[in-house]
């Protein structure tokens, strides 16, 4: 098996769904140059923690990344044991639950806005989008 193609999205499964076992290369968290990086094998760096925090929209406080970095390494090392899980048949019996698309009562605008830190003219008020 050759190196995996960069999927560029979270939906880019490799052909056999198990490409990572044979291939030590991992993509970075955002589409871009492929980097030989595996947080769990090479220990996590503070840069990695800060990068994930950016994706998750959490503005880390000073010292957070340093405090989290060793904990993440321990936790991800434990998660690595999932590599040993065999593939079993998944006979999932799931059905969609539908209802008629009919008009019905909902929250009033006042109730919906009551918990907003700020609102204006009946709308939520937020920061600039860019």
């Amino acid at each position, binding site marked *: 098996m050759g190196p995996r193609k960069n999927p560029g999205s*979270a939906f880019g499964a490799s052909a056999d769904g*198990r490409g990572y076992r044979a291939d030590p290369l991992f993509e970075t968290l955002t589409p871009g140059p492929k980097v030989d990086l595996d947080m769990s094998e090479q220990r996590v760096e503070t840069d990695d923690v800060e990068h994930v925090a950016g994706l*998750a*929209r*959490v503005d880390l406080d000073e010292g957070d990344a340093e405090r989290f970095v060793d904990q993440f390494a321990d936790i991800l090392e*434990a998660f690595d044991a*999932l590599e040993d*899980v065999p593939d079993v048949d998944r006979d999932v019996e799931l059905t969609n639950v539908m209802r008629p698309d009919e008009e019905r009562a909902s929250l009033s605008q006042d109730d919906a806005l009551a918990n*907003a*830190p700020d609102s204006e003219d009946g709308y939520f008020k937020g920061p600039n989008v860019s």
Partner: protein
Amino acid sequence: MARDAFITEAEIAGNESGPLADATVAVKDNISTQGVPTTCGSAMLEEYVPPYDATVVEHLLDAGATIVGKTNMDEFGMGTTTETSAFGPTENPAAPGHVPGGSSGGSAAAVADGEADLALGSDTGGSVRCPAAFCGVVGIKPTYGLVSRYGLVSYANSLEQIGPIAPTVEEAAELLDVIAGPDPNDATTRDEGADSEYAAAADGDVDGLEIGIPTELLDGAHEGVVETFWDAIDELEAQGASTHEVSLPSLEHAVEAYYVIAMSEASSNLARFDGVRYGQGGGFDGNWNETFARARRDGFGDEVVRRILLGTYALSAGYHEKYYDQAQAARAWVKQDFDEALDDADVLASPTMPIPPFELGESLDDPMTMYLADANTTPVNLADLPAISVPAGETDGLPVGLQLVGPAFGEETIVRAGSALA
């Protein structure tokens, strides 16, 4: 003493008559109560007042219950000790100096200390059963889909159920009868609980009951916990039950699978807290992303940030196959193992928790230690099955719980089996 069991004390009166007309009920603070603050144990929601009641709260009030307060909990349900609450810890009334377990620690403490007759918790990976075990009371985690989650603030929605906590199995089953049943506002609910009579099953009759004991759930458990567990099994055998040991190899991977799935779902579910529609705002300095990100760091505690970050990582490009997909494979394997074991047994028994209650402060700085304490409870959530924790006795004066796991919608079976002990 258990004043610290509540984040908000209240008195919400229900109907004058009904099966719970004489009962006081404490409600976990991630279950919405109209007009009464619902904080999820988080500074993010310190000021949040729900504009509607959760379906289970409507059921409580219809049944005549009086709600006496909203109970302390690990922030958004993320913890095993109730110490990650932004409002401080709760002491275990049954074991002073120790944690009450979590995440529904306030609910279990309120019942153990008589502050409420009954309580509701929520169980994502053991959060009803763990505090029930640590506080020496009874807790039930229902089959996924038995109880409506409408109005429960989501942490990991594919795993969690609201469940009852009570001094006895019969009282817990009575409360489950009140809250179980389908709800048009929660499309994952099923019809099985509609006309339930679980309380009637609490007759203590275990004659002929076949109990399977998964060996993986005893391996590595605290010696005193294991001794107390076998004493309880002896008692069930003396009342006519028989037992056999069974191996479920998938259980060795359940904790990892649980945490990957729970953190992944948390990273998505908690994305709603942007400080604009509700919750703590980040002010208007900077653009949307900067303001949003600042509000989230200010509002969330460390354990919540840890889980959001790790969940984001487990779902990200290049890693979701290794972590999230493999965790789903493990979940299917765990389900298969449980189904096979329950072909040869009516219930499966284990210690609820592999350890006695932590001392206050003991596990806070070591998340892995806290996660591993969930080894016996998390597999049940992965398999969507019902389970009950009943008091099994004590080790060195600390409560030990016995967990009984049943087949899907087999609540009557676990209630009957558990009622032989409590």
